[in-house]
């Protein structure tokens, strides 16, 4: 849904495309055998090939190719059986070869789609133009020394998938939804961990503005937006910046800009004249890559159930709302946890409620993921069982849950230890009711003479007297009978 911006000369529409660089999960690098772990000591994960020593040559990592194919299939994209690696030539301190091995005219994956989930519950299909494999560069640290930049090549040569979207997005929300969905899909596939903090998933935003219905305007590329929040902020800022320029009679210069998170603005990068003529040509150290049908089929069979399909299944089979199902499938670990809680036998809606509202709510507060939940799926299931068979009431269950979180103990043992079993013995309940009515004879009279609202008071008293353990439904039932006279 296009979010039009009100300008001086009328309404403007944003046209947004995203380029995502996703680091491929693999043990070794795309063209060398050096390890790919994050955070190692500088230059300890660098092979001679990564350091571009004289005479070094690239050899292609089979698993990285499979990961790219898997991702392509997960994006419902066309897999190109023949693709070519090309050199993208430019100079930078963390680009040892003086060129990046990438793919240009013939990428490994072609057109695909991503269904994005918008805040109002609707979905939209956003086109993916292509996905190709390329080398990551090393890292330059500019803040370690007054007059020097430090270069660490650990990351140099790690496999990246560059995923380019069609310029189909029309609002910051859509862009955010695209990034979130893409990230979720990559994590489901196990092809990228989507960690934007660590830089294993990076986004560049391409944005232009136009009057609705007009041809595309000149776009700018915004780099260094390393969180969904920043992507949204950068889009808002850049759209307005461009609108202002055009409305004042200027023209947009096609350029690359950096997002400055501190100031909340985009800045022009010190572009150098004709600096970026990359002189792409097929890498003569490599041969064209040909994929066979058998391999593609094998990867297809290994595809997990993807988030959209899983969400549909939860909605259809478990009757969950789109929202609830959406929350559960946002992370595969959550969906797996949920299904373990269900264990094929428990009430899906109740389970969903507990997982989402209670568990995820608590974990969110403490800044943890479901993988770090102190309560296991089996344990939560146990609690739900106690609730379902009326061993405890809903209110008590919440207390038990809190105790489980804090202590890591199981539901049953907590209930036993603290004697929290629900009182369902009507005789015992009657006794408490009688005692309360006796203590509050005046109120009984008031109730009987028409003050219906006092019913809540009696319920409260009974619950209090029973230490919260009386079965609320029975209390209601018995109280009604007795108060009626």
């Amino acid at each position, binding site marked *: 849904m296009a979010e039009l911006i009100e300008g001086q000369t009328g309404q403007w529409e944003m046209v947004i495309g995203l380029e995502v660089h996703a680091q491929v999960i*693999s*043990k*070794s690098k795309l063209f*060398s*055998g*050096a*390890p790919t772990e994050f955070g190692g*000591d*500088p*230059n*300890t994960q*660098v*092979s*001679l090939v990564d*350091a571009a020593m004289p005479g070094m040559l690239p*050899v*292609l*990592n*089979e*698993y*990285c*190719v499979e990961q790219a194919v898997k991702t392509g299939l997960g994006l419902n994209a066309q897999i190109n059986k023949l693709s*070519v*690696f090309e050199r993208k030539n430019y*100079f930078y*301190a963390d680009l040892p070869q003086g060129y990046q091995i990438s793919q240009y005219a013939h990428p490994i994956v072609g057109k695909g789609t991503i269904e994005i989930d918008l805040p109002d519950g609707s979905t939209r299909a956003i086109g993916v133009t292509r996905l190709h494999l390329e080398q990551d560069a090393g890292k*330059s*640290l*500019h803040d*370690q*020394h*007054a*007059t*020097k*930049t*430090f*270069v*660490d*090549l650990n990351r140099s040569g790690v496999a990246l998938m560059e995923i380019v979207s069609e310029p189909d997005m029309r609002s910051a929300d859509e862009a955010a939804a695209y990034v979130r969905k893409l990230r979720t899909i990559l994590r489901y596939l196990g092809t990228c961990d989507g960690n934007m903090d660590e830089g294993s998933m990076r986004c560049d935003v391409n944005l232009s503005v136009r009057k609705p219905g007009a041809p595309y305007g000149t776009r700018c590329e915004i780099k260094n937006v390393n969180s969904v929040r920043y992507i949204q902020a950068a889009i808002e800022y850049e759209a307005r910046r461009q609108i202002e320029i055009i409305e004042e009679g200027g023209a947009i210069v096609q350029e690359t800009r*950096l997002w400055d998170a501190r100031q909340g603005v985009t800045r022009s*990068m*010190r572009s150098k*004249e*004709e600096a970026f*003529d990359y*002189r792409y040509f*097929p890498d*003569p150290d*490599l*041969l*064209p*890559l*040909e994929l066979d049908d058998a391999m593609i089929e094998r990867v297809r069979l290994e595809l997990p159930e993807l988030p959209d399909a899983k969400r549909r299944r939860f909605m259809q089979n478990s009757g969950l709302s789109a929202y609830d199902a959406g929350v559960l499938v946002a992370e595969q670990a959550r969906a797996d946890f949920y299904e373990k809680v269900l264990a094929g036998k428990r009430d899906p809606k109740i389970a969903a409620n507990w997982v989402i509202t209670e568990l995820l709510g608590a974990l969110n507060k403490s800044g943890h993921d479901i993988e770090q939940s102190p309560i296991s799926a089996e344990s939560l299931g146990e609690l739900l069982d106690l609730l379902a068979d009326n061993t405890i009431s809903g209110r008590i269950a919440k207390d038990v849950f809190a105790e489980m979180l804090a202590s890591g103990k199981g539901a049953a043992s907590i209930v036993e230890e603290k004697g929290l079993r629900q009182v369902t013995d009507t005789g015992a309940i009657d006794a408490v009711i009688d005692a309360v009515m006796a203590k509050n004879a005046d109120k009984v009279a008031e109730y009987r003479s028409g003050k219906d609202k006092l019913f809540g008071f009696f319920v409260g008293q009974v619950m209090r007297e029973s230490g919260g353990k009386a079965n609320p439904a029975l209390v209601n039932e018995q109280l009604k009978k007795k108060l009626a006279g």
Partner: protein
Amino acid sequence: MSLDAAAVAKIARLARIRLTEEERTHLAAELSSVIGWVEQLQEVNTDGVEPLTSVVGARQRLRPDVVDHSTDREDILANAPEPISGFFGVPKVVE
């Protein structure tokens, strides 16, 4: 196709090679001569011909995803002009 000193300066900048003015002029003549000479290829009818990027008729071989620990930091920094604390040092880059 004739190249002038300005064109040579542009190419030299792309190739990150500093040239003196004399070199630029001299090279403009030399490069013009070589480019003019290779222009003869325009005579050749190449309709329907695929560019030959490798004489090896095969397809790219794939390597298993196995880590190779044979190179350590010492090897990588052994010939570095300015190794500092395990990094390669270069003049500070301002982005």
